[in-house]
């Protein structure tokens, strides 16, 4: 997908309600083959992109996916996205100040994450990558808990079962199999919960993702695969991962795939809700490709100026997920200056809390190296812990002796 292609699509849609598509269920619609369509691939992709809110902030309808939110819910989505972006910006700054070793920014992907995250029920289970800060926010994970691993005081550190939000997974795509297995367990338990696996366009090339598609399809597991196609896997564009739009991969595995405007929080919410409902009613997995853009670097160690043009980033800036919802809320008179000021103030409070908590985050005790290596213990770990503790203690003896002088 080129920048020109997405720009054309925007113009072509023009915010008007599409009337050509026959009304079908999401599943049927999504599995319809586009093969043989005389229009080019861009046209096919354009037809498939689910959008409920245009970049200009105009509400549009889609034949398959609808949403009806109260003013309070709409404002809630706005608040979620603004606070998530602020948290993310604080973390980037903290890395620049040396408080974090690394940060993986979600800038630009707020709608994909908040939309999908707010579609979840409490009893659903999330398997994230390492960039799902917005989803973590929706799950009620304290954002400061996400920073421990980036500061280097732990490798995760939150209790996955407190919020049904698994640890961040760094090895690309591994978590899609865990999600599938977890979903198989949900199915065995006879529960009607659903599981959602997050991954990216780069991960779509991983064997584990392919295997998770196979397993989930064969067992009809209640799992939703939520792919944030943010166009870049570090320096490699999506064209280096695939010849077909990623959502179409699902068809070969026998379950539906759909591409949603990943910068449209309403569309992401509506599509994810539908996919989760399918899963929890025994209709099996579904792939959602949230078409979005990584506005920032891959991580704070990355330099995107080496591989992508500024114009591309600028073009996506015009499709900003927060801006479009704000335009809509303002046009509809659902927010006023006082409300927006209150959100800004809440952002400042969050920012300060994040800074304070991170700066006060202590380094772990030396012996934490040996903690939880095994659940039932291991003789070698015990031996090495004792030896290392004695070694450390030898310095204390030396220090005491020195003080004695």
């Amino acid at each position, binding site marked *: 997908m080129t920048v020109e292609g997405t720009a054309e699509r925007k113009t072509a849609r023009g915010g008007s309600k599409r009337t050509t598509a026959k009304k079908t269920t999401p599943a049927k619609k999504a599995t319809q083959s586009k093969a043989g369509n005389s229009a080019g691939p861009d046209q096919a992709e354009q037809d498939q992109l689910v959008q409920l809110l245009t970049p200009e902030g105009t509400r549009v309808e889609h034949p398959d996916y609808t949403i009806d939110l109260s003013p309070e819910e709409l404002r809630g989505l706005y608040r979620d996205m603004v606070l998530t972006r602020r948290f993310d910006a604080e973390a980037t700054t903290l890395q620049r100040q040396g408080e974090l070793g690394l940060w993986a920014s979600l800038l630009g992907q707020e709608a994909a994450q908040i939309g999908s995250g707010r579609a979840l029920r409490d009893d659903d289970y999330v*398997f994230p990558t390492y960039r799902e800060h917005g989803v973590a926010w929706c799950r009620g994970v304290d954002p400061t808990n996400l920073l421990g691993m980036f500061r280097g005081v*732990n*490798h*995760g*550190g*939150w*209790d*996955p*079962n407190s919020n049904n939000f*698994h*640890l961040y*997974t760094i*090895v690309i795509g*591994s978590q*899609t*199999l*865990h*999600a*599938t*297995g*977890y*979903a*198989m*367990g*949900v199915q*065995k*338990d006879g529960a009607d919960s659903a599981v959602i696996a997050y991954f990216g366009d780069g991960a779509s090339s991983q*064997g*584990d993702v392919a*295997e*998770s598609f*196979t*397993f989930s399809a*064969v067992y009809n597991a209640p799992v939703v695969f939520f792919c944030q196609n943010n166009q870049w896997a570090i320096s490699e564009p999506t064209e280096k991962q695939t010849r077909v739009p990623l959502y179409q991969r699902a068809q070969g595995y026998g379950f539906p795939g759909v591409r949603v405007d990943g910068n449209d929080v309403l569309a992401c919410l509506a599509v994810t809700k539908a996919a989760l409902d399918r899963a929890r009613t025994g209709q099996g997995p579904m792939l959602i490709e949230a078409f979005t853009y990584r506005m920032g670097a891959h991580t704070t160690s990355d330099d995107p100026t080496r591989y992508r043009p500024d114009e591309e980033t600028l073009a996506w800036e015009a499709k900003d997920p927060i801006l479009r919802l704000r335009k809509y809320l303002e046009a509809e008179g659902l927010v006023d200056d006082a409300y927006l000021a209150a959100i800004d103030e809440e952002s400042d409070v969050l920012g300060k809390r994040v800074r304070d908590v991170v700066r006060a985050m202590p380094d772990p005790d030396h012996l934490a190296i040996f*903690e*939880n*290596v*095994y*659940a*039932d213990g*291991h*003789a*070698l*770990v015990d031996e090495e812990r004792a030896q290392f503790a004695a070694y450390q203690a030898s310095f204390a003896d030396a220090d005491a002796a020195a003080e004695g002088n």
Partner: protein
Amino acid sequence: MAVHEKITIAKAINASLRASMEADPKVLIMGEDVGKLGGVFRVTDGLQKDFGEDRVIDTPLAESGIVGTAIGLALRGYRPVVEIQFDGFVFPAYDQIVTQLAKMHARALGKVKVPVVIRIPYAGGIGAVEHHSESPEALFAHVAGLKIVSPSNSSDAYWMLQQAIAGDDPVIYFEPKRRYHDKSRLDTESIPDPLHKARVTRAGSDLTLVAYGPMVKVCEDVAKVAAEEGKSVEVVDLRSISPIDFDTVQSSVEKTGRLVVVHEAPVFFGSGAEIAARITERCFYHLEAPVLRVGGFHAPYPPSRLEDEYLPGLDRVLDAVDRALAY
């Protein structure tokens, strides 16, 4: 199930799986061909018939997928017992085992447990084609978070598997495939030794042989032949490769003063290297000879017509015994 006089290792594992599944409804069996077929070695024979397809699961042919979904099931509260069909086929799952399974408990600061047991028929001696005769235990023993065990007889096969399944850590359970049909005594009502405890299977005073899995029988045969030559050889069945019960090995070496470690896996960076280093450290003043190792060569496992040369057999182990006693 009552007490058996003699039972094959394969049947002992089958009985063990059955006992675990009866004891805990969360125990699942997963793998390629484990259901209707009962596994290519028939180790899971009859279990799907008795426990259903929901608990004895024929999986797609994808090892990473098998282990990765087993991790997810474990996170949901299940106890999956995964079968990897052959030793050489485990590597597609190596990433899931090393980067995910082994580390998840620690990453979560102990807040989740992943009690996945991975059964792997391993080692050679059955005249198989490539990738069906390997001994990759050291590649796993090097990884913190995993426990590695290998039984050498029916009683251990029965008890150690149930202990592995009942524990909360991931365990790789290496099954000596060439001994599957060897019969030995199984008492299902005895009190088993702890899972990670080594066992002296034959007492001796001149030299200690340490082995595990398929090599224990070879070492016991060596000890008998050596006895005829007037040499008293003690045999230690290690049983567990991670952790290793160094105390038992140490006690033996303090008595005999000589140690030879035997395994099918290549000697280079093999478990024998670790045992030699640790025992040298612990028993420096007791050793009468350097610790010697007998094992596979630094070459791919050979075609089956050559495997008798590659595998440590009676003569190669006896040669090492003689060399150690010559000091």
